[in-house]
């Protein structure tokens, strides 16, 4: 049985779920948005986990693979802030996440992906230290809260990119020195990178398969701007580097953000360990979702 944990309004989860159905997989969908009705227990006496969903026992011992795409439960309505009900909900939801993560860490099932290996994305610079030895170039980076240091760093490049260091989603943007100066005393340490000019390429590694696409947009962060996505073939040595990087990170699937410059220098900007690939899966057949479903069913 395959456990799928997430929400159906997530196109990525939905597309994998649909392919699992086509492949006649035995699926248990655990609805994250109904987390209040989910309960998990671990007993040292029986050395076992028990999962209950809406009062029903989910046989974890039968789970051969799991696709975990949890959400930030604090976004769910209606959880009135500071109410007693909200506090209880938050504690229980946190404990449920804690226990399902503990189960995922020790489970023999095929996990996409284990929480501990997904965590590399919580620090982009920490991840960069794994990316670089795999043969990719990485942008020159600076973390600073000092205006003069940032100004000097920026002067060496054609542009400066400002983004979050952690996995908290932020809009990646180019920042001008005048804008930065006006905000200099209002920021904590900021994360800055040299602006790399080139073509945006997103690679999804699913098991041993590589899916690549080109994203054309006039904006730095194409996720929030008009864009065009088309599938492309990338050189075999770059494919090999993507496979190696995914393996080094301990991931079964990965969304790798690459940029190739006019002089064919390949940069890796970051790796998303739980990619929302539906955004890039432009094929009518939803080939990336199919590969994920096949990876889950071949357990």
């Amino acid at each position: 049985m395959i456990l799928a944990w997430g929400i159906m309004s997530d196109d990525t989860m939905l597309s994998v779920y649909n392919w699992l159905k086509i492949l006649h997989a035995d699926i248990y969908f655990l609805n994250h948005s109904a987390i209040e009705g989910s309960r998990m227990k671990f007993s040292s006496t029986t050395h076992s986990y028990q999962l209950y969903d809406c009062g029903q026992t989910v046989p974890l011992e039968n789970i051969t693979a799991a696709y975990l795409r949890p959400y930030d439960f604090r976004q769910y309505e209606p959880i009135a802030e500071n109410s007693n009900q909200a506090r209880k909900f938050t504690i229980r939801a946190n404990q449920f996440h804690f226990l399902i993560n503990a189960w995922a860490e020790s489970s023999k099932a095929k996990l996409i992906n284990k929480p501990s290996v997904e965590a590399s994305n919580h620090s982009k610079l920490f991840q960069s230290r794994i990316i670089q030895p795999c043969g990719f170039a990485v942008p020159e980076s600076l973390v600073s809260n000092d205006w003069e240091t940032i100004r000097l760093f920026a002067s060496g490049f054609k542009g400066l990119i400002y983004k979050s260091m952690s996995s908290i989603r932020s809009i990646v943007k180019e920042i001008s020195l005048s804008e930065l100066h006006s905000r200099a005393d209002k920021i904590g340490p900021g994360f800055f990178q040299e602006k790399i000019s080139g073509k945006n390429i997103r690679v999804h590694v699913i098991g041993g398969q590589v899916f690549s696409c080109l994203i054309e947009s006039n904006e730095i962060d194409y996720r929030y701007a008009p864009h065009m996505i088309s599938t492309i073939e990338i050189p075999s040595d770059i494919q090999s580097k993507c496979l190696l990087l995914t393996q080094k990170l301990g991931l079964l699937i990965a969304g790798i953000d690459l940029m190739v410059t006019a002089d064919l220098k390949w940069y890796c900007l970051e790796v998303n360990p739980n990619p929302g690939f539906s955004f890039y899966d432009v094929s009518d057949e939803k080939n990336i979702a199919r590969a994920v479903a096949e990876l889950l069913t071949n357990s």
Partner: protein
Amino acid sequence: MILILASIYNERAKSYVKQFPDSSASLITCSDIAEHKLKIFYPDFNNSEITIAGRTLSVREITGVINLLPVVLPEELFFFPEKEREYQSAEIQALLTFFLSALSCQVINKPSALSLNGNVNSHVNQIEFAIQCKFPVVKSLFDSSKVSSHFKAGIDEEIFEVDYFNAEIISNSTAETDDFVRKLASHAGVIYLKVFFSKMKKNIRFLRASAIPDIENTALHKAICNYLKIKSIP
């Protein structure tokens, strides 16, 4: 310079710094990182600098780190507006994860992506590991529907701690526990580990493990000083 990374609220860490001779150690908190001049480069990490107690310190001058801070909580960042603290705590955690892993000196313990104190499993996974090692564990039940986890310990039980550092058991070595403590530390890949056991008559059972160095343990302090090749103040 030895850095003692600790919570702003850790009063014991402030006095611990004085146990190192000739001002060879400095306390570093999230306030030093966030509020004072900082420049951290990558890939050019060796040119990075931080500011501690008004002094600019190159990362090349850092000869060791004792990390007492497993996670950056929003409460550490009281100097930021309240609505900013949660985001900034994730940012500082990300920065420290990188910073501690990039230093070429000894770091006790090196961070993992999950924790600044290394790859020590969650409490449930520690218990699972003990069971796999066939080491008895304190009866415990974790239930997401309950506010706190339940441990069933008898009133006559004594709690004792075993400290592991650099492949040695440095305090409370016992024939019953040493092998398991070594296995747990090796599994976690940490240089320091404190393991808590419950003891009733001759029955010893695993309780939990922590990778935060116990700065009140004089044997550990001496071992750390030897490891970092510095003299300790008795």
